[in-house]
């Protein structure tokens, strides 16, 4: 499937799930974060010359953090999804606070796709839509397959170009 193929436009707003590889990618990032803390904390403590001692119970926080992530991430990712409609791109996420964002394609200023090293390992990509309302008006969708992200980007860029040509 190439990026020039039309992404599925669904005006009935059926939510498309994120890539199934997004969950292992997120879990991997949490594990790496916990490992970084586990390595950095004793190193930082050694620089204080014994003034800072990490209590034994503090080490229990790391597995607790990982267990909490394991409990929260799967339902959160299951709930996340996007819907490309004729005139807008919608995205929903959030486990405790449900959020649904819609960005009209006519309001998109530019589109960006990016891939972190971990994204590259798992074959994922992130797409970001920028509007003139910087900050709250931008839409970021993590955890898309590379092909899906490229198709979305291509579709939106073509649409924005079409609007610009119509304006002229």
């Amino acid at each position, binding site marked *: 499937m190439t990026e020039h193929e039309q992404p599925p436009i669904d005006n009935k707003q059926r939510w498309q799930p994120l890539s199934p590889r997004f969950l292992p990618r997120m879990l991997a990032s949490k594990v790496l974060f916990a490992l970084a803390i586990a390595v950095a904390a004793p190193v930082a403590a050694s620089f204080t010359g014994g003034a800072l001692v990490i209590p034994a119970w503090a080490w229990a926080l790391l597995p607790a953090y990982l267990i909490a992530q394991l409990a929260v991430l799967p339902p959160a990712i299951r709930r996340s999804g996007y819907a490309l409609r*004729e005139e807008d791109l919608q995205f929903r996420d959030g486990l405790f606070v449900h*959020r649904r964002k*819609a960005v*009209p394609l006519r309001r998109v200023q530019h589109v960006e796709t990016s891939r972190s090293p971990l994204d590259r390992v798992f074959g994922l990509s992130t797409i970001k839509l920028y509007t003139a309302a910087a*900050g*709250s008006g931008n839409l970021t969708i993590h955890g898309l397959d590379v092909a899906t992200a490229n198709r979305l980007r291509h579709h939106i860029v073509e649409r924005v170009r079409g609007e610009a040509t119509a*304006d002229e």
Partner: protein
Amino acid sequence: MSDTRWRRVSPLSVVFYLAELARTAVRQIIQLAVPAAAVMAGTGGFTVGRLYAFGIFVLLLAMVIAVARYATFRYSIGEQSIIIQSGVLSKNQLNIQYDRIQAINDSQNLLYRLFNIVDLQLDTPGSNESEAHLPAVSPQIAASLRDKVQTAGNRRTQQLSDDEPGRDEPQAAIIHSLGTLDMLKIGLSSRRVLVLFAVIPWLWDTVGERLASSSTPQRVIAGTTAALGNVTGLGGTGSATFAVVIAVLLLAALSVAAAMLRFNGFRLMESQGSFTSKAGLLTVRSHAVATRKIQCLTLRQSMMLGFFDGVRITAFPAASHRQEGGPFTIPFASRQRATELAHGLWGNDCRNLSLSPVVGDYQPVDSRYRVHLFLRHGLAPAVVLSSLLLFVSDFTPGQLMAGTLTGCLFLGLAAIGAQRKHRRFGVQVSGKDIAVRSGFVGWQIDSFPARKVQAVDIEQTMLQRRRGLANLRLSLASRTIVIPYISLTLAQALAEKILATIADDARHWI
């Protein structure tokens, strides 16, 4: 044919660059002081001669940088865009299409007035600060740029056929002006004065206490108030009152002076679908905005403005909140005049919206909004603060009683505040336009056409889900408007209506 040759700004821009360097140095004072002190200490310590030499070196360096920046700054005014080249070490070239320019703001300080040049800022959307800045150019250049931006705007407007006929009067007509009495009202309505009224009890206590004690540091104050007593013929308490009154009057006068400095001789002019304001005592600032570029318009009446039956109007073009010129402001107008001016600023948009706080079909938000406000701004801070205080210190039963009473008083005020805010909050939807009314002591109305919305968010907390409520967040290019605690059905309907309006409306948002 337009003159597209490369031009330089006035050599006086060197003064601007020096001032900018000085501002940067003040901002980075700590980062600069540490290496400077290290160099001084490492090369034999601080002496007066060395400090002078260092000062002269810094001044010369600043002069060289300022002159180099002037020498490398060039601009060219083309038919469709302005090109700006700048940079001493790295070269930058900016090409800004005229139809992207939101507003052209110019200002003249005393020096610039003497040489008849202006400092010109071109506001564009999506940039964190004024993207294009011409530090010292002639007023003719400013006028020529305004014409080009206006022409570009009109061309687009004509293409899109979205503007009303008969808005092409060539001369700018003054439609609103402010006099000296208005400066007094603006000054006295400033938040500075409000803060002042809040600190009067504290001032009273402080002066009273210092009169009672006569320890060394307070002798001057005690002496001053005693002298005031002699002059005014008043006793201790009387002179304390006099001192407080003088302080209040002095600060109020300062606030009025600040209003005069900024808004003296305020004139609002309209020409060809754009509005220009001109005001200032020493530095005269001119701020222009095209009607079609306004994203959101706010009418605000604070408690003090309400006392004078005045309203402040603020028009927000895209990204104006992040730019130096800021939003377009009409600092004072009577309530009725403000409504007329606001409709004038909107042009063809928001015609059917009532921009009055009392007239219009404002739908209230759910009553649980006041519970949310009370929990967030009343109970939560009270619990956190009292827990912290109890944790860090032991209190006597008397202090505990006083603390509890203060806490109860605070919670009572928070409850009243939450109730008032909830009652003031309302949403008015008229056709394709939206107005949101809010306020606590005064009121504020934010109005905007649905087609200017950039993104729509619906969010639900767990509690809101149980009650079928949601917050609707509308992101505009100038600011974000949140409509809290409306039913999920209404939030979804509004979101769909806004998205449909954007899809159907061929007019560009900018």
